[in-house]
């Protein structure tokens, strides 16, 4: 269809595309159509999935005639670019790719235009994932909430999944685990065989809070609960203790000798070289792990639902959200919204996956795409994405994460017991939140 439209006169082609898009997104996008928009500038990070996103930008430009300029920065530099742009009198960028860790800061600062203010009644297309309601912000309770204002559209769904090496599994007669006990049992078997680490955690200080979150929530715990009266710190609960004991056990008994220094790059390296039999890692790594130039385990890895505990299964949201700044002209805001609307389409998301991206729709699972071995991660990804949680859903997330990371890391490297680490983390959370003016309650120490 797209080739045919290219042969039509420019105006006719745009009209056809506009009608097609309107039909495709009629349930959500209302009157927002992608045609005749001014060129927009999009701030985005350099990442393994960037090429797949660029392919979608090219597709959008071909289909609509609209133009998008990408401003690509390393991960660490993007946040400063975003801050500088949204804090100025007039924004440099029309669309911002915002990491889940930065969402609360950007939302609470009032830097984005709620999509409902740009187009009355605007809602995400059916099937688009919300990753623990992180696309909406409730300014009154200062947290993410499904009943809050819609602030953006996910652009990449980078949640964590359970990876396992099928070759190692087959050699040892192991089956896909569904509980933490089964993960530990498989890890013990792999470790005993001696050719690979049984299970690798991502326990360096930069990563540990993100990596630990699925353990905590699947054991029925949480970092804290946000209520109308303030914050109730819950990390040092019996559920939290069970989660950290599981985590430390896997990290120290089945992983590399110094797990407290393992960051994302190290973990992916261990997976890609076949040195890790199992790990919980981001689905964004899948493309690299299936690339023969970067991986020795092409076709040998599989993705699964993160194991279930007393609290069910949970994954941590690590996705990216496209947000439209408040400090740009209405024309540019509409142009950015047109792209976001187009991007949610099922055909677009299918093409995104085929280009190597991670989709932001959950309804691609169980279809023709997931039946294709190349995209065998889709079902596991969709299941984990549906369980994604935002562990620290407040603007102070970054400060809390830094403090908690140190205490969890200390538990992994043996400087503290699990109980001591959780008590220290709870005290740190309480101190930070009290200083920020929250009313804080917390239970007795473990």
């Amino acid at each position, binding site marked *: 269809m797209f080739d045919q439209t290219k042969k039509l006169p420019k105006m006719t082609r745009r009209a056809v595309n506009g009608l097609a898009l309107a039909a495709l997104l009629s349930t959500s996008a209302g009157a927002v159509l992608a045609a005749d928009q001014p060129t927009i500038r999009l701030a985005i990070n350099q990442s393994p999935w960037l090429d797949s996103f660029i392919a979608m930008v090219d597709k959008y430009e071909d289909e609509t005639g609209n133009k998008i300029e990408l401003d690509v920065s390393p991960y660490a530099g993007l946040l400063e670019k975003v801050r500088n742009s949204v804090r100025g009198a007039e924004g440099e960028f029309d669309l911002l790719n915002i990491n889940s860790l930065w969402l609360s800061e950007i939302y609470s*600062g009032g830097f984005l235009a709620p999509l409902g203010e740009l187009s009355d009644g605007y809602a995400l297309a059916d099937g688009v994932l919300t990753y623990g309601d992180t696309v909406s912000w409730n300014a009154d309770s200062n947290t993410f909430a499904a009943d809050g204002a819609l602030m953006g559209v996910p652009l990449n769904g980078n949640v964590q999944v359970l990876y396992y090496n099928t070759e190692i599994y087959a050699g040892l007669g192991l089956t896909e685990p569904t509980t933490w006990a089964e993960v530990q049992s498989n890890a013990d078997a792999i470790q005993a065989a001696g050719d690979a680490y049984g299970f690798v955690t991502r326990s360096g200080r930069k990563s540990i809070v993100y990596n630990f979150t699925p353990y905590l929530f699947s054991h029925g715990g949480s970092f804290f609960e946000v209520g109308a009266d303030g914050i109730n710190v819950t990390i040092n609960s019996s559920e939290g203790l069970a989660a950290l004991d599981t985590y430390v056990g896997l990290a120290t008994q089945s992983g590399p000798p110094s797990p407290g220094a*393992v960051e994302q790059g190290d973990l992916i390296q261990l997976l890609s070289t076949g040195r890790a039999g199992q790990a919980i890692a981001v689905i964004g790594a899948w493309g690299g792990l299936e690339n023969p130039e970067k991986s020795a385990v092409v076709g040998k890895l599989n993705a699964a639902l993160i194991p279930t505990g007393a609290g069910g299964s949970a994954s941590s949201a690590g996705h990216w959200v496209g947000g439209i700044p408040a*400090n740009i002209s209405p024309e540019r805001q509409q142009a950015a919204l047109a792209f976001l609307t187009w991007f949610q389409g099922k055909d677009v998301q299918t093409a995104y996956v085929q280009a190597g991206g991670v989709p932001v729709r959950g309804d691609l699972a169980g279809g023709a795409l997931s039946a294709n071995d190349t995209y065998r991660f889709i079902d596991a990804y969709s299941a984990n994405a549906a369980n994604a949680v935002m562990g620290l859903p407040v603007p102070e997330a970054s400060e809390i994460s830094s403090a908690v990371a140190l205490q969890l890391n200390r538990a992994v490297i043996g400087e503290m017991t699990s109980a001591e680490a959780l008590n220290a983390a709870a005290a740190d959370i309480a101190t930070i939140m009290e200083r920020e003016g929250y009313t804080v309650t917390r239970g007795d120490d473990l």
Partner: protein
Amino acid sequence: MTNMHGMTPTQRSNRRWITVSLLPAITIFALLSAFPVFNLIGLSLFKVSWEEGKAVYDFVGLSNYKYLFTEEEIYWAGVRNTLVFSVTVVTFQMALGFTMALAVMRAGSIGRPLLTGVFLLPIVIPPIVIGTMWRLILGREFGLFNQILDFFGAGPIDWLGNPDLALGAIMFVDIWHWTPFVFLLMLAGLEGLDEEVLEAGRIDVRSFWQELRHVLVPMMLPTIVITMVFRIILSFKVFDEVYLLTSGGPGTSTEVVNFSIYRVFFAQDRVGDGSAMSLVTLVAVAGVIVVANLVIKLARRRASHSEDES
């Protein structure tokens, strides 16, 4: 004709001209140096937040400092590590740099440029490349060092992942990186020494060690002092090696002051707290430099006094 201050009109006029012509430069320099510091002082007394896209400044007095001194555990771990780091690397760099400069001075016409080129190589490599390179060398699983150890049937050692070794590994990389800087200044200092005075000094000594102790080191003292002060200041600024190799971990074993400030100021956007940390660090480094200068002056005075006596 002279006035009561013993200056002629021409001398007075010259002095006025010198003062007036220097004034713009002094003013610009003072503004560029003083303004950021005053800005830092001001920000350290506020909590800065953002509401509806606008910055909100809440005056909090000294509470950022109180928080820093009572609650910021990671920062103070960084202070301890930075002091250990600074003393260790500067000591090694001074000793190695001076030794390398002496070796080059004594090398032949072919060896001299060759050694100079080789010794200077680390300082011209960009920090990001150094981080990548040493991460590959020191890595536990696939690192070059461990492959060498493995060849001899030893290891592997987790240079960056073991809390007891990680800071040592960072210091090793820093010594490798910055010793050429010391070498360069020492070489310039040695080449600038008066050859006649050196020759005269050599007549009175019996060995190289006596020459080193009684001739070279005393004559090189000004260069040594300046180089050491430079290196102390630069060592307190350590950031890139920590950021690229360990991110401050495991635990707080490689946390350094600048990394704490970076995290608080940029990653966490806590402008008030970050300013308070920066100011405390600034004052501490200035204090260290003042104390170092005093100690050096005392040592020089004592040395010249003992020479006079002998």
